[in-house]
């Protein structure tokens, strides 16, 4: 990874995406200029992404010749914490319906309070239960949002 720089890598990924969009747009039908089809604008967008990412690759390559090298975007950071947050968010998405809003919310808040920058257990328990009750009160009772209920009815 030391021979290329960040912009070269990201622009190359964009180029792949742009080409993918171009290819995927064609089956929708491009139509003609007098009567553009469903795939017309996505095709143009894909073309634009490919064009700008190509410019990016050239720009980044010129910068590389001036000494721009790969810079780690994770160095010196506690990236595992963002990984935990991401995992908790995904778990919330998939457990919200099976567990119901209140339990899922309490587990979510409690887990984050305990793991990311560990708080004392009383803070974790109070925070988890408090957040679940308060958000249920605000959103379900006051604002009448229909939040998912678990097998236990809340």
């Amino acid at each position, binding site marked *: 990874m030391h021979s290329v720089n960040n912009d070269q890598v990201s622009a190359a990924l964009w180029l792949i995406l742009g080409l993918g969009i171009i290819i995927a747009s064609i089956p929708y039908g491009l139509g003609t200029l007098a009567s553009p089809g469903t795939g017309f604008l996505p095709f143009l967008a894909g073309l634009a*992404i490919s064009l*700008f990412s190509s410019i990016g690759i050239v720009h980044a390559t010129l910068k590389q010749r001036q000494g721009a090298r790969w810079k780690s975007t994770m160095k010196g950071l506690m990236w595992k914490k963002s990984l935990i947050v991401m995992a908790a968010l995904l778990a919330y998405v998939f457990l919200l319906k099976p567990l119901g809003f209140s339990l899922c919310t309490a587990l979510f808040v409690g887990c984050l*309070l305990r793991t990311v920058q560990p708080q004392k257990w009383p803070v974790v328990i109070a925070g988890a239960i408090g957040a679940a009750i308060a958000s249920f009160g605000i959103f379900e009772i006051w*604002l009448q*949002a229909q939040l998912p209920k678990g097998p236990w009815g809340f």
Partner: protein
Amino acid sequence: MDFVGSMLMGFQVALQPGNLVFCFAGVLIGTLVGVLPGLGPVAAISLLLPTTFHATPVSGIIMLAGIYYGAMYGGSTTSILVNIPGEAASVVTCLDGYKMARQGRAGPALGIAAFGSFIAGTLGVVGLMLVAPPLAEMALKFGPPEYFSLMILGLTILTFLASGPMWKALLMAAFGLFLGCIGIDTLTGSLRFTLDIVELSDGIGLVPVVMGLFGISEVLLNVEQSTERSVFETKIKDLLPNLRDWADSIWPILRGTVIGFFLGVLPGGGAVISSFVSYAVEKKISKHPEKFGTGMIQGVAGPEAANNAATGGAFIPLLTLGIPANAVMAILLGAMMIHGMQPGPMLMKEHPDLFWGAVTSMYLGNVMLLILNLPLIGLWVKILKVPYPILFPLILLFCLIGAYSLNNSIVEVLIMVIFGLIGYFFKKYEYEGAPLVLALVLGPMLETALRRSLLLSAGDPTIFLTRPISAVLILSSFCLLVFPLVPWIGKKRAVLPKAEAED
């Protein structure tokens, strides 16, 4: 209806008790959002959008607008007391505001920020009232080619003003256009790129995308940094600036108002840019530019006035042309559409109560903010002391509930989480989210305008150059795209992000 009559009708609407409550709630929440670092007006408006569904459209828009200009007020508090901007438009206030606080002048800094914001916010609303009606009249002459060219200009301005290389901003705009294509093709009714997911047939929702890109990603970035924020321990006294402070600040406030208003009107301009421009102007014309950054009250007054005036200006393209000037306006556009209204030149004629009610509520909101901001500074300082590790799970929870309650859909929550991750990497690799959001909102309108124009001209693309208004707009876009290639202008353009990075 004449101007005075319209204003009276506006006040009649805005002064209804229900609307006053919504206005108050909006400015209060906005100030809180502005105070809290890591939660900007974009995320807050997205979060609270579903709560307005039960209200009338006028009340909903009044509250959402209140959050926007309230956040501009609140942002200065954290900049001055903690040296962390509550939101992006207050970045530049840190430079002199925090230094003033260190010198024991936190009170006058907070005071002039509040008064400057009030004066600029009020003048901005006056400007909005004066400029919007004739512009809306003119916009009635716009056909599909003019709308297409105007939207292209908006996107170009935003990419021109974005920090970092222009190719990145253009790339984001193109990606936003593609995302805007997902769902039903409005002209033919066929589905595109939905991956057989029913929820995607209406397209990718703006709110989950914005909450992911600006809310979730911000939290992900914040938790991996071990920044301890400490509120500057000082007794906040003398909130009312003295005569000397006023003499030093009044012209920067007025200049900031003009700069903010006009940059706010430009699609793609806005509060952040205008605060930087105002600071640069004040420094340039000052007899003591070397003292800027050491606690000059002008460095607080000008930018704070500019970012508040910009909020008034930003409503003009939205309310008169239906074109959002920035990400916040894009969400407001979405909110209006959800409430069954189409912002644009006909809004003033079809829903004068909404237009004038919302505009006059901004007057009232500015007064509320002035009354609120000064006595509540102590409360905001207490809130600032809540540790981030306790705050961030709640921010995430609000995002999750907000995304879910839009359509009671888990898919929307998943979209938000995915865009949170995408936004995280965008920020790591220095890609700005704003052009993407604007393009996502404009995408469907732009596509319709483009295809109708081509149908109108029997496939002749020169239609965009043969109609005078369209030609001027397209040529302006072209100039903006070509300008960065001119080395001198390229250098000038690089100054802004560099200054931001240094801060």
